[in-house]
């Protein structure tokens, strides 16, 4: 990585807010304007999103960006097959932000770049589609919300099931009272992850700007076997990163219940003792007024399966007891199994009889449609940035509990901090590497 020059530094430090805030805000795209998009992060999800938006007639992928140039070809080919124009290929996302003709930044980076990439894009007058989990830590999530509001940006989070019709039907069903009063929701995220390899640290491969990849996070020695998901520097953990989908849906089903009063948590690295930071087992209990939510997560349970796409997109239901991503809604008069990303839901009455079934379908396209619509109408999208913040926040709390010895933490919603543990409050925000800071006032 070349050293940051003064201009770069100014953009990425306290001066950044002022620099971008001074930019005139780009007018909203008109109904017939082609929306020009830059994609930041060309892993599997970023490439997928680039291809999907390139296929649309109302959008154009103008930039593809990744610090690792080895990732360029796969994404570029997919985009060029789907649209007439060739995207510009860049390693540094700030070139996307510099381009006044770009309307949108798709942020499909590792967790540690979600906040800074989104905030800088808002400051530069871009609307944002950012992948889940919204933030790396609680403080950063709040700053993302503030930036979106301050710069009047549309920020959609990649929690696509919020846009699925079957999900809305489940919410309507619950709100109709057919389950009675809901007092318990169980959220399942039971996975099978591999152990990390034991390759020693090594030189950074040519063509990979590792310093830029680390960005605001600590620059650990490069190791080809390390999974960023397993390191606190770059991630809020593979459990939080995936289970946030189900918890977000659980919140949706319970009328977007905001903050838990307290979180009890027990977590451990029970099976995957490979040098990782993040737990492979987490059980968390969230306390609300009249409602308890339980989050049950593992990374070492191969017999519990994700719902195959062939079921999620068809008139079939998962094998619920062995469904790794199910949500269970328990009311005083009924019970619901609920699946994510399709998979549908089924409701049972007090006698244990199946009384209602609704098939599901994945909703990526609907979620993207909603985002594009909001760019023109300036309405809040289905998975607005604040929804994303509140849906990942309990997982941040559970992680902090793990890091301070599995303490029960009481949450002060007004300050988004803990009223019973000073040690825990130290984890609300992370350390930022020199040259990459998010100002208090975004």
């Amino acid at each position: 990585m070349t050293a940051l020059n003064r201009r770069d530094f100014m953009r990425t430090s306290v001066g950044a807010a002022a620099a971008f805030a001074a930019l005139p805000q780009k007018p909203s795209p008109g109904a017939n304007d082609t929306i020009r998009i830059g994609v930041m992060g060309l892993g599997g999800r970023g490439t997928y999103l680039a291809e999907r938006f390139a296929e649309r007639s109302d959008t154009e992928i103008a930039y593809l960006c990744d610090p690792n140039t080895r990732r360029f070809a796969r994404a570029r080919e997919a985009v060029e097959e789907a649209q007439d124009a060739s995207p510009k290929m860049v390693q540094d996302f700030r070139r996307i932000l510099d381009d006044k003709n770009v309307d949108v930044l798709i942020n499909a980076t590792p967790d540690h770049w979600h906040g800074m990439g989104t905030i800088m894009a808002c400051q530069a007058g871009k609307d944002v589609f950012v992948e889940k989990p919204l933030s790396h830590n609680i403080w950063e999530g709040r700053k993302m919300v503030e930036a979106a509001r301050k710069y009047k940006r549309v920020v959609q989070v990649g929690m696509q099931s919020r846009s699925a019709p079957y999900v809305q039907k489940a919410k309507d069903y619950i709100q109709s009272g057919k389950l009675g009063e809901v007092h318990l929701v169980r959220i399942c995220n039971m996975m099978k992850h591999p152990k990390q390899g034991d390759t020693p640290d090594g030189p950074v491969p040519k063509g990979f700007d590792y310093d830029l990849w680390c960005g605001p996070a600590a620059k650990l020695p490069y190791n080809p076997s390390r999974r960023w998901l397993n390191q606190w520097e770059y991630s809020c953990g593979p459990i939080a990163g995936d289970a946030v989908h189900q918890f977000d849906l659980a919140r949706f089903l319970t009328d977007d219940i905001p903050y838990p009063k307290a979180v009890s948590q027990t977590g451990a690295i029970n099976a995957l003792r490979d040098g990782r930071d993040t737990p492979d087992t987490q059980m968390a209990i969230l306390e609300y007024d009249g409602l308890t939510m339980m989050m049950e997560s593992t990374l070492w349970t191969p017999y519990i399966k994700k719902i195959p796409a062939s079921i999620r997109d068809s008139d079939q239901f998962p094998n619920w007891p062995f469904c790794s991503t199910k949500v269970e809604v328990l009311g005083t008069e009924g019970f619901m199994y609920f699946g994510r990303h399709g998979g549908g839901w089924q409701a049972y009455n007090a006698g244990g009889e199946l009384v209602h079934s609704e098939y599901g379908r994945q909703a990526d396209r609907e979620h993207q449609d909603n985002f594009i619509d909001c760019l023109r109408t300036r309405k809040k999208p289905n998975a607005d940035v604040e929804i994303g913040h509140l849906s990942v926040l309990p997982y941040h709390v559970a992680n902090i509990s793990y890091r301070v010895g599995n303490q029960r933490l009481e949450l002060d919603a007004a300050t988004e901090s803990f009223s019973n543990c000073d040690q825990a409050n130290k984890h609300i925000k992370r350390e930022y590497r020199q040259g990459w800071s998010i100002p208090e006032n975004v």
Partner: protein
Amino acid sequence: MLRSVLACLSLMGMFAPCAHASWLPIENVKVREDPTEMGGPKIVIEYDLPDPNISAATPAYVFVRYSKDFGDHWELLGADRLRGTGFGIVEEPGHKELILWGAEQAGIADLGQVEIRVRAVAMARIPAGSFALKGLPGAGRDEAKTSKPRSNLPLYYMARFETTVAMYADYLNEVGGEGAGWNRRMSRANRCGITQQSDHTYTIAPGRENHPVTYVSWYDAMNFLNWCGLRLPTEAEWEKALRGGYYLDGDRTKKQPNPLPERPFPWGEEAPDADGVLRCNFDGEDDGFARTAPVGQFAEFASPYGICDLAGNVAEWTLDWYSTSFHVGLDGFRVARGGSWMAVPVACDAVTGATQLPLKETSIMGFRGVLAPRR
């Protein structure tokens, strides 16, 4: 009487830099039926393999396919049913003869009903031994693997060239029918160039014969190679073919040390565009090709075993899975190794790989076969 015999002649003569990038030339094919004292007639197939470059290090892989219903259906004549000097790995050029015993039992004794086709692929011998495994199969995240990848491989053979448009069109024309391994994008003349005609035969756009076939899914590649009697290389096999083993003659003799066993590129350590020398087909037109190049175009920058285009041109499907729990239900992923005509120069090295759904058909991915122990 024999209805027809096809000797799959190379279409390569028109491309000087690469002598044999499609099927190797096979000439003077003759098939006859000889009586035997016991067990009914035997079929004798004779042909000439004229390429003087065929050797133990760069042999031909010869396979025979036959039809007993006037070409409607074809089958691979298994090597276990053949005897003679001219099937499987063939290490010398010249006149060849192979014998099919038990022709009657196989139901192909009546040559009036039978068509036979003999084809040959240019291969390279990769002796058994250890090598510097640097790339992490599945990027080190393949939970389908329960053991570490092997850095010591038994003897295997790899095709010296990527599978070409001409070879793939020949395959399509034999397996025939609608949709058999073909998709509409293949007809794009500047990226692949195989067009399906109304009678479900397949034609090649002029000048595309010798380019690597593209828009092939992992399943297409597997089907083609099954048709030949070959398979896709594993990631380890692909990487060893590029770098060479610690000893290029293998660990048994150890007489020929590899001068650069950890080389990042087939030719050595220089970047593909270092010092103004263009060593493979990467992104842009500086190398003379805006998209794919005819295979073997950069033959002087081949791997230590004489295998061409492992760097650049098209990325190549491998046998290996890339699968994590995040991908369950998505049909699994497979790994394509190497750079392509769309890749930056550094990405044309020994460790670059991309994960793709096996149904993916792209203009930057092709394949080549290996003859190797089953995995």
